[in-house]
Structures are given as structure tokens and as C-alpha cells.
């Protein structure tokens, strides 16, 4: 089960839940599972946030694989200058 | 007001051009004569990107009226290298990675040449004060100073 962590500013969309265990093999499936629990959240999780999967920050993941022990963190996007 | 005809020697070549009396030398170099190697960073004489030599003296071409060049000699960045060969200052800038974006580089090369023409063996402090009129935002000046020191050594005929 992948462990998913929401930053404080997204917890407004998860009824205060910070941490979830989700069964999924790709980021797309992970988001679909989370959407089932919190309808509407996928509009933010896809395209509006960055994601760290097992420590690697990715902008716009979708097909990226998620492993059975993966840790997935949602983050504010960072582009830099 | 009509344009004024000006005759100037630039990089050893006799040139003539027409310009408005209020046009700066920098504007004429770039827009009339197509010598865009000299850059505009501020147009108020604070950044040195427009450095040229007027009768061998280092000046900001943005602070000079083009009409003032009549009958005089200018050296711009385009005149620093000779034919196929880069000037040692240019070679050392490349070797020492003394440029990152490169916009200030023409000004620094001209300013460095003006320094070494006058003082072939400057101390680090002398180099820094002489080049204080040239702004660089990318390099922090370290490698520029080292390049000029190395170029000075080469020009003095000493082994690097």
C-alpha cells in the first residue's frame, strides 16, 4: 500500500486527513483512488501541484509507477529562477 | 534639425556617417554602423557595457555624443582581435571561464586592454579598481580578475 501525504493547504480538501494508504500501481490510479474518497480533488492533484514519489520531485506525473511501499507527497509547485 | 556628417577612424578603418546631434556614440555604433559588439546596459555611464577607447582612453560610449568623435580614433571590441587571432585577453577570458552570459564581456575586454596598455604589471587591487566601472552580475568577478592577471603575464612575455 502506498502511503500518501497531503500538505496542510490541501488538507482542506481531505477533511483534515493528512495521511492515507492507497492501493495503486501508477500515479494515475493513485489519484483515481483519492478522487473516490474526496470527489473533486483530482482537479488539484493533476496539474496544480508537484509530487514527490519516493523522494523524487516530479512536475506533472501521470503514468509514473507507484510501488507497494512508495511514499507519495503532494507539494506546492517549484520552478525556480 | 538636420543631420551632421561625421568622419571617424574606427578600429583603424576610416568611416563616415550621418547622425543627429543628440545621438550618443553608443547609439550610432550600434544602430547606424552595425557595430553591435558594444552593448547598452544602462545608457547612463554606470555599467561599462558600452566601453570603448577614444584616442586610446577608456570611456563609456553612452556618455559621448557621436559628433564628438569627428576626426578622432575609436577602438571597439570588434577591433581587439587581429584577423584570425584572438587577443591574449580574449584567449584568457575563454581559458579561465571568465564569462557566463557574456553581455559584459566586450566591455571588460576593452577595459582590460586599456588597463594593460597603460600598466602592464598591475596588482590585483589595481585591476579591481580599474575594472570597477564594469558591472558583471554573473561571475562575481573572480575569474575575470584571474584572466586579466594571466593575460598581463602573457603580454609581458612571461610563461603562464
Amino acid at each position: 500500500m502506498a502511503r500518501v501525504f497531503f500538505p496542510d493547504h490541501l488538507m482542506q480538501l481531505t477533511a483534515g486527513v493528512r495521511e492515507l494508504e492507497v492501493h495503486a500501481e501508477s500515479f494515475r490510479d493513485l489519484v483515481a483512488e483519492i478522487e473516490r474518497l474526496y470527489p473533486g480533488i483530482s482537479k488539484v492533484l493533476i496539474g496544480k501541484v508537484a509530487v514527490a514519489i519516493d523522494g523524487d520531485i516530479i512536475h506533472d506525473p501521470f503514468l509514473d509507477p507507484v510501488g507497494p511501499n512508495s511514499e507519495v507527497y503532494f507539494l506546492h509547485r517549484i520552478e525556480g529562477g | 534639425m538636420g543631420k551632421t556628417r561625421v568622419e571617424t577612424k574606427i578600429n583603424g578603418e576610416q568611416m563616415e556617417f550621418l547622425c543627429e546631434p543628440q545621438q550618443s556614440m553608443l547609439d550610432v555604433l550600434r544602430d547606424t554602423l552595425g557595430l553591435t559588439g558594444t552593448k547598452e546596459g544602462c545608457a547612463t555611464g554606470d555599467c561599462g557595457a558600452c566601453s570603448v577607447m577614444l584616442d586610446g582612453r577608456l570611456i563609456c560610449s553612452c556618455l559621448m555624443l557621436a559628433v564628438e568623435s569627428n576626426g578622432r580614433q575609436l577602438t571597439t571590441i570588434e577591433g581587439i582581435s587581429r584577423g584570425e587571432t584572438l587577443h591574449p585577453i580574449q584567449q584568457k577570458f575563454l581559458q579561465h571561464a571568465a564569462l557566463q552570459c557574456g553581455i559584459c564581456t566586450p566591455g571588460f575586454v576593452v577595459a582590460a586592454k586599456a588597463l594593460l596598455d597603460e600598466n602592464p604589471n598591475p596588482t590585483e587591487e589595481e585591476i579591481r579598481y580599474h575594472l570597477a566601472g564594469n558591472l558583471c552580475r554573473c561571475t562575481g568577478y573572480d575569474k575575470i580578475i584571474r584572466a586579466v592577471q594571466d593575460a598581463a603575464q602573457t603580454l609581458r612575455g612571461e610563461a603562464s
Partner: protein
Amino acid sequence: MSEARDYKVIGTRVVRPDGVDKVTGRANFGADFSLPGMLYGKVLRSPHAHARIKKIDTDAAAKIEGVYAIVTGADFPKVGHEEITGGEGAGDFADLATNVMARDKVVYHGHAVAAVAAKTSAIADAALAAIKVDYEQLAPVMDLDTAMADNATLIDERLFTAGLPEKPTKPSNVAAYMEFKRGDIAQGFAQADVVVEGTYRTPTVHQGYIEPHACVASINQGGQATIWCCTQGHFDVRSMTSKVLGMNVADIRVIPSEIGGGFGGKTTIYLEPVAMVLSKKSGRPVKMTMTRDEVFRASGPASATKCTIKIGAKKDGTFTAMSAWLAYEAGGYKGSSMAPGAMCVFAPYVVPHFLIQGYDVLVNKPKVAAYRAPGAPQSMYACESLIDDLARQLKIDPIDLRLKNAVSAGSQAAYGPKFNAVGFKECLEAAKKHPNYTKKLGPNEGRGLAAGFWFNAGMQSSAEVHINENGTVTVVEGSPDIGGSRASMALMAAEELGVPYERVRVVVADTENAGYNNVTGGSRVTFATGMAVIQAAGDIIAQCKQRAAATWGIEADLVDWKDGEAIPKPGVNADVKPLTLAQIAANSGRTGGPLLGRASLNARGAGPGFSINMADVRVDPETGKVDVLRFTAIQDAGKAIHPAYVEGQMQGGAVQGIGWALNEEYIYDSKGVMQNAGFLDYRMPVASDLPMIDTQIIEVPNPSHPYGVRGVGEVPIVAPLAAVANAVRAATGIRIPDLPLSPPRVLAALEAAKA
């Protein structure tokens, strides 16, 4: 994944391929480009910091001989609210469009209200002077305290603070609130033996690139346009311009010139859409450049901030709790770098309990843009200054205090995920051993130390590798070269292909002949575009193996590639000579066609970067002037592809940070007009201000990159602010929390302390 290996060319200090044109003045920067029939465009800018536009009368201007087009906000389409997903606080397309050309309101002195295209600059200036604008002036809001006060004058009456726990009922100048929490902050402070607190302010500063914004736009009567401009991201210029003007991206070709510095300030658009509309109206190409004055007043500086930090620690130095209250100025439109500032502030440390509260605040100043590690210098300046005071209070060496709490592989980053391998401890250990750490200091001299951090970005890059008929290599990529990246791309291609560096050429292509690339910035080019180049080279190698196999009549999987040649794998029975890249290329027409390798990716696994900076200063007690005597930058680069350019980033960022600490600030009068919009009084460091900048590159490889590369461009600006401030504290015995530590401020503090 990266493994220790002997590199043939990686790590050597080659001369960059675009160098000769840059030292001879041949390289073309943004303002160096011209087209026949070109007009000159100029912008009319608001004389007021905050006002409603009642009427614009362009009749007199239009009558001037040589004026070909005049535009105002009415000539630009209305753009709907849509978030610019360009990264931290990048903002909203509606705001971007209005920033480019004001509609009903101006929100900073210098805001564009009209533009003209004329035969000469002088005629354009005369036309601007003839445009009459009626303004209804409003009270300017010029600082955080004023903007955040109850009953503050509102800059956008329809703006309600986003992110508050309860939906607000009244509009506000606070555009957004964000919180980051871990553990129980009250408990964390209760566990502490010592609690320290400080409030720090940093001013509005500018990236200070020497090249002003410049472009030439040419649109034909069929709506097909070309823009030549200096930019860090030509694909972003294309997408942003298309949004602002309601155009199809396919109709806009953006050709990037060489760029004379950006540092984040050239990742957005200002002149380009205006030049386009002028070109459309006039039917001619239009050139626009900013004066230095306009660059300061009307591009995108970095946020002024107010940061309050509180740290709780045990007697032995273990941090128990940290809190941060961070307010960042966004300028006239929302979208500061508050979020990354909040994510970075405690990033180097293991902190069991923290609370970070951030505010994005509107003020009547130009809309901020990114500036090298956006947000981090300001918040980390505050935290690193306070840690310095804590070390003094606990009587613990500042390196040891940081080592005690330093993150390493497996630590939970303050912004969420666990770190993979990172080099913070290695930087600290290197600082401890560095000879500069123990050099003797004289009277009025002091040494300060601080840590720096930046995430570093991945994102999208594309690259192609073409093999020419003589076996030389052309790499085609789309990342404008700000700091020598062409050299690094050539080194990586040469290393992968096993050919000498001199056989490789690198081209930065435009939006029509490069594959899509995200911006040059975010410390991402060596990492992400480099990865695309490595993969494209790998594609070539795969093709070469196939061509060799076909030539030899064996299976492709029996072929190896070594040192630029195809050879049969060891043990394969084939009586053949190796085939070089040149030979395969010469024969490529017969074996399947030209050799063309390609790769495109959304790079993941960018390695976070850490640094430690040490500054030695002397403070003149009579004038308050601070001289930097010695500066040491230590940074983890993962793997330095070209060490001289890595050092260059470290030195350049250090000096920008020194300027931010000591002299740089936007000075405003009571009407909200900047008083020092030029290089004379916006005082950036010059060569005579500085010593050599000593550098030490640490290499803790990034496990997610084939060579271990970490981005290096942004980290260098973060630590110098506190390193210098801590040195001033050590030299004077006084903590001066507000930047810059310019002579008047330092002198006032010295005199107040004497009293």
C-alpha cells in the same frame, strides 16, 4: 543510476563552444537584432503608484509624422482568470495580461498604459509625450505593515484571501495564506531549554541582469508571427504571449537570442505582446527595448519580506521546535515566492515540531518575478541569523550546532518527502576543515557562517543528436545558454558517444526546430536537458550498433559500443574491424538513412542542493561601511560536469547575495515612486568591493542521475545573506536584523549601541 566511474571528458575544463563569439562581440543578444523596415516601439508608463485610468486620449500623438501605431489596453483581448502553472506563485494569466498593458487600473509606478511604434526612437518618445491620460489617484500601499493593516486601502477590491481556514467576508491585500505544520508546536517549545526569537526584514531587490529586456516582433497579415527576444524560456514566451493575445501557439515562432543574464527575471513576458500588437497594427516589424530605468520600475524584482522566526532547543543544541511567520510582497498582482520560501526555511534541519505561516501580500510595486531560488534567500536569511544567535547563546560552535540537527539520507524534509542522498553534512564537515574557518581576524573583523538550500527542478526537456557525414556530432537542444550550458551538453554527448569534445557542436534551437523545453532556470538545464542529451546519444549508439551489426551480418545484440566505436561483444566470433562513428555515419545512407537520435523527458529525480558559506568582514566604526575580506562557498554539486562553470555559479550567486546583504534595495518616496532606478544608486557589487571568492565543490552524487548531477545555479544565492549578517554581528557585537546592512543603517546601529 550513477556509479563511480572514470570519465574521459566529464569534469574537464574545456573552452565553451560559443565562447569566441562572446569575447569578440559577435554573439547576438536581444537588442542586437534588426529587420528591414523595422519600427521602434516605446511604452507610456504610469506616473502614479496606484490609480484608476479614466481616459486615454491618443489623438495628438497619432497626428505626429512617423508614428505608425498606438495601442492601449483596449487593443488587447480580455483574458480570463487561469492559473499559470509555471511554478511557485507564478500567478494568473489575467493578471499577466493586465501587467503587460493596464486596463482600468494601474497598480505600480511604471505600469504600462499605452505604447507607440514609430520610425525612430525620438519620434516614439515625442508621441508618448503627446498621449494624455486622465487618472484618478488612489492612496499608494507601499509596505507589508500598511498592506496588511485592517482598513488598508485595497489594491484589488475583488481579492479575497485564499487558503484561510474560514472563508473571509471582506476583501484584502493578502492574496493567500499558507500553513505548514508538523507535530505539536506548543509541546515542542515546552520541551526546549532555550527559546530564541527574531524578526527580520529584507527589501525589494532586483536580479540586476546587465542586459535590459529586448525583442523584435514581426507578425504578417496572415497572423503568423516571429519574436526574437532574450529570454530564459522561449517556449514560455510563446505560450504566455499566445494566452495574452488569444493566439494559436503554432502561429508564434520564438527565436531566443543569447541572453545577458536572467536569474529568473526573464522567465515571463513584458514587451513581447506589446511589440506584437504594435506590429499587427502597423504592418511592420517592431523593436522594443527597456531602458535601465524601465527595467527597475517595470520588470519583476524579488519580494521584500518580513519574517519572524522562533527556535526552541535543548542545552545540547538539539532543535525541539521551530516556527516561522513569513510575509512576502507580491507587488501589484498576487503571486510571490512565499510558498517555496516557507518550504525552504527549515529544510536543512531535522525538526520534530514546526509551524510555518506564510502570507502573499499585494503592494503597489511591480509584480515580483523569480530571482534565483525564489523565496529561499529571504526566509533562510532569517532562520540562519537566528541559529547563529542561538549558537552564541548555547556556546556551541555554529557548525557543530548545525551538524547536530542536519538532514541526511532518509531524513524527512520539512516540506514533506524523505531525502535521498544529500550532501549537507559533507558541506559542514568541509567547512570545519577549511583553512578559511580558522584564519586570524583583526579588530572590527568578524566571521559568519550560514547554510543554503534549494530543491532544484526537473521538468521537461527535449534533445536531438545528429551525426554529420564525417562523424562529428551536432546536439540540438532548446535551453537558452545563460552560463555555459552548451559546454556541458557537449561534454555529456562526447562522454556518452566516446568521442573527443572537439567533435561535438551544440545548437540552441527555436520553438519551431527544438522539441519542447521548460525554462532555463530552476537549476535544471545540466540535469534535465543533460539527461535528454545523454538519452539522445544513447539512441544514436543503439542505431550505430544496428548499422554495424547489419554491416557485419550479425545480430545487433552482439554488438558493443566502446570509445566511439562499434565492436563485437567479447566472445563473439566475428572477424571484423571496429567501426567508428565516422565510418558508420559515412555509410549511413546505405544502411538505413541518416543517423538521428532523439529523446524527450519529464525529468524526475532532481537532487536537492545544500551549501555552507563563510564570510569574513571588517566594519568601519566611523562610517558603518562593511568590507568583505574573505568569502568561502562550499556546495554539493553531485557531479561537476564542468568544474569552472560550477565554480562560476557559486561565485556569481555569492556576490548577488553579498549585494543583497550589504547594499541593494529599492528606495521609495512617499508617493510610491522608486528613487534609485539606476546602477549608480541601486548599488550592486563591483570588482573593487570584493576579494576572490573561494570555492569548494562537494560531490555527493545524486542517485537519480546517470552522472550524479545536481543542479547548482540557485543554491549559491541563499546562504550569503546570513553569512554576511552573521559576520557583521561577530564584528560589531550587534545584531542588525533588517537588510541591507548599508553604511547608514550599520552606523545608526553602532551609535545606538554606544548610547
